[in-house]
């Protein structure tokens, strides 16, 4: 079986190389049979990679511990679903998973565009770029980090009785779906990049590719957002200290392409509606793709230290070469095609929606740069000064909180500024009420005793943005309700359906606002660690916590102990929580299964961290105000994104005003 798997990967690599060759030569020499052959090779590569993946999954499911990868990442006691996740739990398997997703995406792109005449010239180049990336990953998986390697002593295969198993921390439901979503996001950004390069190579920087690309970018953005949030949810519920974001280099690596793609999704509107920022969009698409590759490089090279990183390997050098070649070629191509990327229209006023997009892009990219700089700075500093330094969470918080707040402000400003130009009167009408409302809200917060500066500003801005978005929905819905004689809710639905992109986008913004409310709650976290005997009581915030009982047991995978904690507030019983401590039989590692009482105002979070020698429970208890808003915000964001993908009921046409120039001398005008 391992031989068939290995053969599939080598054949996929060879066919991938052939597909690139056939597509490029076919496009160059105008040979249709080569073009068709190159596209069919894409389907063959997909079939081969899928077969290899299926064989690896089969080996994991059937406990084939002759295979080193299966032995290292699975064991007999693991539940079936976690065995399946072992596919991407290690270096080799995750590279195969990358290849599988990319080959699937490539096949989907080739299949869905096969009858679209507008892509006929571009398609061979799009296929080549996609296959070039796939061939790179297939090279790694077929020749460098082979997943079908057999455990052997000398020439004899050495079957093992049982495997080492997946890290117990990863045996949690969000970890089952977190990596696939993140990978779907990472890999998905290759498609917009391929379209961008295809349009550049064929000198067709028109609107066609941008429409398709925007849709792909939006879908992959949703995947990436989901992946990031699932990771945050996992960290919150599993690591035992309630943190959902630790500014770890690998976490940062997932955020960087998300930021640049967010930037692209905004600036692409400028190209669609005004024919502006064509070069900038190319740069953003390319930056997103290369940041995805950089993220993969950081996770796998050991360049920066991270708890999420795979074991150190020689993969780093391959990625450096790929990045260098890719960035070099892309830069050359963009520079070479600059004459084709000229703006069709001009900026008419600084006070306009166009300008707000520019500032939004600037702030998003500043945030991206700050995170990238902070992530790489320890390496840069060590190279320059020879001394190691640390860049921990306080640095990222200090730099990114002001940037994030300004971005939140722009989220509120953007929708209220008109395209082309906004008059002072229009601005006053649009901003007066939200600004006054936010100022009053902030004053009330201060009067209520909230003196955390950033928290007050953040809540104020959340109010401001909510008011601006609310006023947009209110005005539009009211107008439709009056015109069509329907109720306001029906009016809001109709309004959204008429322009799904605009109002879906507002809902996404609302999701971000709700998430910011959740982030801001962290300013008021409470925590207390106690050693308590059964029957004793302690206090945290408004809660009285009593260790009512302690129980233990075991199953074939782990030994467990849990404490029963009675939660009361103001004398009345609220609930009983059951934090658990596990010790896994095979790995010997210990994990906590925290107990959380979730509520919109605050989460009560209990971690059974251990026991003292005299049988006291070591309990870490936390109150996390508003943290649930982060997860609620994610759902709102997802709903908004899905609405954006629904075609609008009314097709809007945007007039592009073109100023071709002015005469050197004034022309006579009759009155």
């Amino acid at each position, binding site marked *: 079986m391992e031989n068939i798997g290995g053969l599939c990967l080598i054949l996929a690599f060879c066919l991938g190389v052939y597909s690139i060759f056939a597509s490029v030569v076919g496009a160059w020499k105008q040979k249709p049979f080569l073009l068709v052959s190159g596209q069919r090779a894409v389907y063959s590569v997909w079939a081969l990679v899928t077969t290899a993946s299926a064989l690896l999954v089969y080996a994991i499911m059937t406990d084939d511990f002759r295979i080193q990868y299966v032995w290292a990442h699975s064991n007999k006691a693991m539940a079936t679903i976690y065995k399946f996740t072992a596919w991407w739990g290690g270096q080799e398997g995750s590279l195969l998973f990358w290849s599988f997703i990319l080959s699937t995406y490539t096949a989907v792109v080739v299949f869905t565009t096969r009858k679209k005449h507008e892509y006929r010239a571009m398609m061979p180049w799009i296929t080549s770029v996609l296959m070039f990336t796939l061939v790179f990953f297939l090279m790694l998986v077929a020749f460098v980090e082979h997943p079908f390697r057999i455990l052997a002593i000398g020439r004899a295969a050495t079957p093992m009785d049982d495997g080492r198993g997946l890290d117990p921390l990863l045996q949690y439901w969000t970890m089952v779906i977190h990596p696939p979503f993140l990978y779907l996001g990472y890999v998905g950004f290759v498609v917009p990049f391929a379209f961008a390069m295809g349009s550049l190579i064929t000198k067709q920087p028109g609107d066609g590719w941008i429409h398709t690309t925007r849709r792909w970018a939006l879908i992959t953005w949703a995947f990436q957002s989901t992946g990031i949030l699932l990771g945050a949810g996992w960290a919150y519920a599993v690591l035992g200290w309630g943190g959902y974001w630790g500014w770890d280099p690998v976490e940062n690596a997932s955020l960087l392409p998300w930021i640049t793609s967010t930037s692209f999704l905004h600036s692409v509107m400028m190209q669609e509606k005004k024919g502006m920022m064509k070069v900038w969009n190319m740069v953003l698409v390319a930056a997103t793709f290369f940041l995805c590759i950089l993220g993969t490089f950081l996770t796998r090279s050991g360049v920066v230290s991270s708890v999420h990183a795979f074991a150190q390997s020689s993969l780093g050098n391959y990625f450096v070469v790929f990045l260098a070649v890719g960035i070099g070629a892309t830069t050359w191509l963009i520079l070479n095609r600059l004459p084709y990327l000229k703006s069709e229209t001009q900026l008419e006023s600084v006070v306009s929606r166009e300008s707000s997009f520019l500032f939004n892009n600037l702030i998003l990219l500043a945030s991206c740069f700050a995170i990238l700089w902070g992530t790489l700075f320890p390496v840069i500093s060590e190279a*320059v000064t020879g001394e190691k*330094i640390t860049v921990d*969470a306080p640095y990222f918080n200090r730099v990114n909180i002001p940037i994030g707040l300004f971005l939140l402000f722009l989220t509120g400003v953007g929708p209220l500024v008109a395209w082309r130009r906004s008059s002072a009167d229009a601005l006053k009408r649009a901003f007066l009420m939200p600004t006054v409302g936010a100022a009053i809200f902030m004053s009330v917060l201060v009067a209520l005793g909230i003196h955390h500066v950033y928290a007050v500003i953040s809540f104020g801005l959340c109010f401001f943005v909510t008011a601006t978005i609310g006023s947009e929905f209110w005005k539009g819905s009211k107008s439709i309700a009056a015109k069509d004689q329907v109720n306001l809710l029906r009016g809001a639905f109709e309004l959204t359906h008429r322009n799904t992109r605009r109002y879906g986008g507002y809902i996404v913004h609302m999701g971000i606002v709700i998430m910011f409310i959740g982030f801001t709650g962290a300013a008021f976290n409470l925590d207390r660690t106690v050693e308590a005997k059964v029957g004793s009581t302690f206090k945290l915030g408004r809660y009285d916590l009593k260790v009512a009982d302690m129980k*233990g047991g075991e199953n074939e995978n782990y030994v467990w102990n849990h404490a029963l904690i009675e939660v009361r507030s103001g004398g009345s019983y609220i609930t009983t929580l059951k934090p658990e401590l596990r010790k896994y039989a095979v790995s010997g590692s210990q994990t906590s299964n925290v107990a959380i009482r979730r509520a919109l105002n605050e989460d009560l979070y209990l971690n059974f961290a251990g*026991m003292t*020698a005299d049988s006291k429970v070591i309990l870490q208890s936390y109150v996390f105000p508003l943290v649930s808003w982060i997860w609620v915000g994610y759902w709102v964001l997802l709903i908004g994104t899905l609405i954006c993908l629904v075609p609008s009921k009314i097709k809007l046409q945007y007039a592009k005003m073109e100023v071709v*120039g002015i005469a050197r001398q004034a022309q006579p005008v009759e009155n």
Partner: protein
Amino acid sequence: MRVKLNRWKTSLAILFVATLCVAQSPTAFITTDIRRAGDKLACLCGACKNTVGTCQMLGCHYAAPAREKIAELQKAGLDDEKVAAFFVKREGLKAFAVPPAEGFNAMSWIMPPVAILLGLGGIAWWIRRSRKPVLVDELPAGSADRVRAELDQEMAKFD
């Protein structure tokens, strides 16, 4: 009754084994003073990006002894700066949770605002450039009259 007793015994035995499996040394408690001083120092355990003050890992091999040391130094009358200096002497600059704003490491703080300023400069340049009118040659003599005549002719059709 006998079955019930056996179940109890089994449960107790499991609880005992489980307790032994997870028994730890008592946790070190953290005071406000320790947290304040510890927030300036990085937890160098390698598993988190927290500070000595905020690391939540019980029995962390770096944060726990570091907190004990901070308490000891504070007891000896050292202020937060001197406590930090002690750790820097022992670990090097990596003991700080954030890069010190001096020498080359100041670049870590300078570059993000510089990037924003450069971006603002870039936007200002782009706006200036895109709003600058493009000068074109004046229209050939009589062309305005010709266009006006054509327009009049077209408009006359609607009269």
